């Protein structure tokens, strides 16, 4: 029996991080619930053991149901029948298996039927589901919408919608429109308040909506007539039971074909306002996007893991010139680099998940009682770190998953180009990760703030650099310190010019340099707890150092005046 959790010991390694003690303590409010609820945890050890056991269930379902279904789901895809989205057979089976095992709404509080899981084990689950079938991971991952309703919805909305998740309700987040993609401020779908019916009514079109015909939809709409920007937008929740929505079509996509991407027409669709008017985009969607980005990062790592395993298996089985191809340097280097990248970005994934866990817990606690000054500082600190780690992570994880899927297919040679091996599906599935929930280019726009504000440098210098590492790895640290000096020099050079276009031009290079240094340190830290990270840290630092030198070289030798020769003379 395959198990996608227990067959990958790195997952348990990240689950067992020392910071979990603090996270569990916060999340469980000192285990106050264990008298009233028979599946609440007794103490820290019980909580950790329960996460482990539940993840084993996720791993079981992923290995024995979802992964075996992935090929047929990719072939069959969803269909539109009588204005209803019908999932592929396998998709339906996957969803039912997870619902039956109580794995929808994992992070919701117990009073709404959830398991009260922190981000870390939830993200591990998301990674495993994505490894099994990245397209299905979208349908499962949209339970994030429950989190948004919980954080911002009224008591009435929470009581109405939240308990439905654990019973298997599906969700969608309806943001994009034909003329509002990356620029969500341009959303036009209209929300008007109908006094007679005493409800909000939605009218307009949404496009590229994942799982568009879901039971529960969060809809971004323009509630303030006459406004043109993001401040006129509010967030609404629409219930499928009202049947006021037409699914115009399901898109035919390159990858993640099991996940229905819909064009929707709302016609006088009744909906409830979530939170306050005008906060839709600037507050709620921003929060939603943050967890969605963490979700795409987990999805990317899951896809990478699947691709790497396929490549490794093939390289061991395939012989050419009288020996398995894994024995050729050109092939084993590809494979080893994939493994190293996965381990590096996975460490960044769970580091970010921990940051998110801590600050979100403090926000949630602050609604129950006043935080003391130390707690408030912690909240601010971790929120600041999350804000810059999240886009950095999404950028790197999604780009890596594309690179790793590309290389995994390459290892297969011509066979990889055929439909006979799963790697072609994985390759197609990877492609979306660097596009949706904000393209890589937009992640850089968010992450560059971490460069200019000094937040990345701060955590590198004040925290990571101050740690002592294993004596046999201390030799790697000077490399990372040198890389940090080099990074600092480049940042200074680019920011001193006080030219925003010049900064934009180099921002991806700067963000990626920071990412490499951070991942290098994270692997060194991991090696303290697990020896198998020794060689990973050594390989990664070697690659990262040469990549950063190349970027630094480019920045230092770049003449600001040369920006002009890149530009197009295009009149708006």
């Amino acid at each position: 029996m395959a198990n996608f959790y227990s067959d990958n010991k790195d997952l348990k390694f990240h689950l067992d991080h020392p910071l979990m003690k603090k996270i569990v303590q916060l999340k469980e409010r000192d285990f106050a619930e264990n008298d009233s609820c028979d599946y609440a945890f007794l103490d820290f050890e019980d909580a950790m053991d329960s996460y482990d056991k539940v993840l084993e269930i996720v791993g079981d379902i992923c290995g024995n149901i979802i992964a075996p279904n992935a090929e047929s789901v990719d072939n069959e895809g969803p269909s539109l029948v009588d204005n209803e989205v019908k999932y592929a057979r396998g998709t339906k089976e996957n969803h039912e298996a997870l619902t039956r095992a109580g794995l929808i709404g994992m992070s919701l509080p117990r009073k709404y039927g959830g398991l009260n899981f922190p981000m870390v084990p939830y993200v591990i689950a998301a990674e495993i589901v994505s490894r099994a079938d990245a397209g299905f991971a979208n349908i499962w991952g949209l339970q994030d919408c429950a989190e948004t309703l919980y954080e911002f919805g009224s008591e009435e909305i929470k009581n109405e919608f939240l308990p439905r998740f654990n019973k298997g309700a599906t969700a969608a987040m309806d943001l994009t429109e034909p003329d509002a993609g990356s620029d969500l401020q341009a959303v036009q779908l209209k929300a008007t308040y109908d006094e007679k019916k005493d409800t909000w009514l939605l009218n307009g079109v949404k496009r590229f909506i994942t799982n568009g015909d879901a039971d529960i939809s969060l809809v971004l709409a323009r509630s303030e007539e006459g406004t043109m920007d993001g401040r006129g937008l509010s967030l609404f929740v629409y219930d499928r039971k009202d049947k006021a929505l037409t699914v115009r079509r399901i898109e035919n996509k390159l990858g993640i074909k099991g996940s229905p991407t819909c064009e929707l027409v709302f016609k006088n669709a009744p909906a409830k306002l979530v939170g306050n008017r005008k906060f839709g985009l600037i507050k709620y969607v921003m929060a939603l996007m943050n967890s969605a980005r963490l979700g795409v990062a987990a999805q990317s790592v899951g896809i990478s893991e699947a691709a790497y395993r396929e490549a490794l298996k093939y390289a061991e089985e395939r012989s050419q010139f009288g020996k398995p191809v894994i024995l050729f340097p050109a092939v084993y280097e590809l494979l080893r680099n994939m493994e190293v990248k996965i381990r590096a970005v996975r460490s960044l994934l769970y580091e970010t998940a921990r940051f998110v866990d801590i600050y979100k817990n403090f926000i949630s606690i602050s609604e129950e009682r006043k935080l003391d000054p130390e707690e408030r500082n912690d909240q601010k600190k971790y929120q600041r770190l999350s804000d810059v780690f999240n886009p950095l992570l999404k950028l790197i994880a999604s780009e890596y998953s594309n690179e790793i899927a590309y290389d995994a297919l390459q290892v297969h040679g011509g066979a990889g180009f055929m439909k006979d091996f799963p790697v072609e599906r994985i390759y197609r599935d990877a492609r979306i990760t660097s596009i949706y929930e904000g393209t890589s280019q937009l992640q850089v726009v968010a992450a560059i703030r971490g460069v200019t504000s000094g937040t990345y440098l701060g955590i590198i210098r004040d925290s990571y650099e101050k740690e002592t590492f294993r004596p046999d790895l201390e030799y790697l640290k000077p490399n990372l310190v040198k890389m940090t000096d080099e990074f600092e020099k480049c940042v200074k050079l680019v920011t001193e010019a006080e030219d925003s276009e010049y900064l934009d031009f180099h921002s991806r290079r700067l963000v990626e340099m920071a990412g490499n240094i951070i991942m290098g340190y994270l692997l060194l830290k991991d090696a303290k707890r697990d020896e198998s990270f020794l060689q990973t840290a050594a390989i990664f630092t070697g690659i990262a150092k040469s990549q950063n030198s190349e970027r630094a070289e480019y920045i230092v030798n770049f003449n600001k005046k040369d920006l002009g020769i890149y530009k197009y003379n295009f009149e708006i």
Partner: protein
Amino acid sequence: MKGLKIIVLAKQVPDTRNVGRDAMKADGTVNRAALPAIFNPEDLNALELALRIKDNNPGTTITVLTMGPGRAAEIIREAMYRGADKGYVITDRKFAGSDTLATSYALALAVKKLAPFHIVIAGRQAIDGDTAQVGPQVAEKLGLPQITYAEEILSFRKEEITVKRRLERGVETVSAPMPLVITVHSSAPECRARHAKYTIKYKRARSLSELQDTSEDYLQLQKDRPYLVIQEWSVDDIGADVEQLGLSGSPTKVRKIENVVFAGRESRLLSSSDDDIEDLMKELITNHTVG
């Protein structure tokens, strides 16, 4: 139907899919210590059918009965992780060496102790003995109707249940009055995965002999949460006659164990031509190997 009471008979078996050299003891009985212990596969199918009845009929309770050594409590926990309500381990040294007759005698007594009930459901057979006798014998001893080889529960009407049976060459739909005994075929749906909440809730459920064997200190916890106690029943608890148990109560005697190795002459070489394949298929269909 509201509030059915279902008893699932389950067995912890050595995983005969992984048989090694030391699988048998010198006396011809199975060396249980050498093989990993698992939930008998068809008993899992039976549990799934019971759980589906519970899904569709609120108020239904599922009690799991197993006979075996103390560690058989493991399968009670596995059942509870999936939605069973409680379970009993029938365990006593005096049961050792019981064949199907003695086992069904003990199980029938334990089932009686749990009366009234609507359905007793079990796997068709266990992968260690492959007899398919225990379920039917329990039904006979209880004087209840039985439906064997069940694949699907089709409907309930008043006190009657309708079941689809999987037979060698087709299916058969039969109805019978409750209470009754049902044995389940492996073509029934596979058992669902563990449920997250039940797993967290019941992971510390232990039988008394398990607690004696380990250093886990769950006594206080069990006092606060009685659902964590997996009851054990001895010969006296079920009021059994010792003579009808164990080796003395078992007419089955293993005369000889033979190690069967397929010899090369039993194999045939075929080409991949369509004619050869068609001939083989015809032969296999005629002798009922397939179809």
